[in-house]
Structures are given as C-alpha cells and as structure tokens.
C-alpha cells in the first residue's frame, strides 16, 4: 500500500515538496515507513531510518501498525521558540 508522509521545515524546502509517498507492505508498521523513506532517499538514509514519525498527530512506537488512511508526519529537526 502507499503511505503519504507529511514533511516540514528545512527538509520540505530542500526536497521542494510537503509530502513523500512511499510503498510499504500491507500490513505495515511505523518501522516499515521509516525504512521505505530511507530506501527512497539513500543520501538521507541516516535521517529517515531513525526519524520520529507522528501517526494521526501523536508520536507512535516504531512497531505500531500503519493503515493507508493514517495521517503520517515526519517530526524531526524541529526548532520552535
């Protein structure tokens, strides 16, 4: 299945987009999404393989299941304030 991952900040500016679509097995976990992101952007593998993902607006354990309808967001490199 295809999961869309929202991205923000410097990363979104650098990639010139605000979301990344990745293909993952079905069923899939948060960890599968991290791995699919890392595989899609080998130059950013270290960032993506360990990046914190929020699922439906909450930080989620890496072995949590992911549905296609979930809202997934990459919460990394934040710098509020």
């Amino acid at each position: 299945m295809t999961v869309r991952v929202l991205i923000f900040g410097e990363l979104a500016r650098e990639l010139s987009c605000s979301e990344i679509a990745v293909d993952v097995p079905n069923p899939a976990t948060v960890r599968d999404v991290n791995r699919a992101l890392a595989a899609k952007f080998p130059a950013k593998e270290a960032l993506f393989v360990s990046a914190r993902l929020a699922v439906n607006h909450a930080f989620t354990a890496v072995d949590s299941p992911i549905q296609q309808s979930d809202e997934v967001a990459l919460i990394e490199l934040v710098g509020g304030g």
Partner: protein
Amino acid sequence: MNVAVHIVDGPLQDAIKCRGANELAQRTTNVGATIVFEGVVRALEGERRLDALEYQAYEPMASQILTALARDILAKHGLISITVEHSRGRVAVGERSFRLAVHSAHRKEGLAATDEFIDRMKCDVPIWKLPVYS
C-alpha cells in the same frame, strides 16, 4: 487546570501580557512569582543576516503537544498557571515569536519550569522555523 496555549498568526503583541499580567496574582493570593519569557527573532543566523523567520506549525498536533507539555510541567513543578503563545507565519527581526508566562508560589520552581519547558518544546513540538535571508 490553569493551562492556556495559543498559536498566533504573525508576531506576538504586547496586549495579552499587559491586560492580564497581574490579574491572577490579584485573585489568587498564593502567587509569589511571575516569569514572562519571550523569544525574539535575532538578525544573525550563523553568519548570514536575516530579515525574518517563517514558522510552520503542524496543527492540531502542535497545540496538542504544547498543551500536554504545559500540563506536565505545571504538575511536575507545582505551578499555579502556564500560558504559552507561539507564532506561525512570518516574524521579522526584533519581533517576538514565543512567550511563556508562568505563575508560581516561589521563584525557584518558576525558573526551573521555564527552562525545562523550552528545552522540551524544542525537542517535541512540531513547529519549524525557516530563515528568510536579507
């Protein structure tokens, strides 16, 4: 619980601080210290001169995480109230993008809470800043 969180479009204004600054202390006689921390956009980011910062907030998660953080800090430090304001969108150099107001019985817990709140905000709250260079 006395926690309030506001995500505001553009720079923060004086208004809320001036209007409400001492109201709580006048009502609840246990307030002994109030701390207002404000973050201001600086002209230099590394070596380059800025015009502004552009803040992106991922809502409603940003407000939810700020609220959960404020509640946790309030309980942990035994505070009386926390009010948080954070800008989104463009904030020019010299303008304010963040304000944290803490009411507490004593100084020590208020200062410790202020420090811890900002540390944890920078780790966990989905608000990003992008430099707008001159």
